[in-house]
């Protein structure tokens, strides 16, 4: 058993455990914290597979920025609210569990049985990836791919982000501030409307 296997085992257990714990945590803050744990564990698996930069981004942006945003909203809406355990919709839980299990079974089958078939096509790319990480370095190699072959999608994501920012600003404005901008209705018109 090498150190890599050991690290994977730990990451595996932490990620899966946190995910399951998310299912049962009643408090939203706890759910968020378990998610952070799972994401950190996932960052470990990224590291194990030579994706150093992605792992760093995973921790900084996902586990850091996005989760802070989540926690912020949770706090804004009130921490003390916790969900009731009673499921109001009939069949929702058994259906979700059953179908989820079926889905998992399908993907697992693919992951275990199909991956061998896939390996015959791809071969083991570990060596090539190691070489890339060593020679130009992970970040540099990544940047070269991102800014050459994926330049157009990259630019497109910038448009997506701008749209998201504008959308959020429109959505989050207080109703009062909207009416302040909207044309005022004269008293006569108001009576007419009434």
């Amino acid at each position, binding site marked *: 058993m090498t150190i890599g*296997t050991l*690290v*994977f085992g730990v990451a*595996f257990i932490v*990620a*899966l455990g946190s*995910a399951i714990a*998310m*299912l049962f945590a009643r408090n*939203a803050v706890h*759910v*968020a914290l378990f*998610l952070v744990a*799972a994401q950190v564990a*996932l960052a470990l*698996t*990224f590291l*194990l*597979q*030579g*994706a150093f*930069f*992605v792992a760093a*981004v995973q921790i900084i942006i*996902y586990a850091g*920025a*996005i989760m802070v945003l*989540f926690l912020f*909203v*949770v706090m804004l*809406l009130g921490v003390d*609210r916790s*969900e009731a355990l009673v499921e109001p919709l009939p069949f929702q839980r058994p259906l*979700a*569990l059953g*179908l*989820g299990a079926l*889905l*998992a079974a399908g*993907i*697992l089958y693919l*992951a*275990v049985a199909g991956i061998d078939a896939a*390996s015959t096509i*791809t071969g*083991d*790319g*570990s*060596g090539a*990836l*190691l070489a*890339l990480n060593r020679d130009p370095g992970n970040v540099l190699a*990544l940047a070269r*791919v991102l800014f050459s072959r994926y330049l157009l999608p990259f630019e497109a*994501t910038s448009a997506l*982000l701008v*749209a*998201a920012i504008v959308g959020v600003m429109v*959505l*989050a404005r207080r109703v009062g501030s909207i009416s302040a901008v909207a044309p005022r209705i004269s008293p006569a018109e108001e009576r007419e409307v009434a």
Partner: protein
Amino acid sequence: MTEVAPSYFLVLAALLFSIGVVGALTRRNAIVIFMFIELMLNAVNLVFVTFSRMWGNLDGQVLVFFVLVVAAAEAVVGLAIILLITRRRESANVDDAHLLRW
């Protein structure tokens, strides 16, 4: 590079994804549902990284960035919507918003 076979990572991803699905469908708090969706996206990221390793190139890792961007945008807009709903209905429970029906 680890000697752990790619299948193991994929198995982890499959399990996390399925847990995400079940959680998104069974929980009622909108924010929590969102977190499960983030979990599913993370599982997908893991798959991309694993495939990147199998092919021996960096395309999979680049795709992780795109998933990340989309997830960020989606989280921001989604949270804003949740915020609005909560402001109006005093609840983040998705079951409370079921007016649009027969």
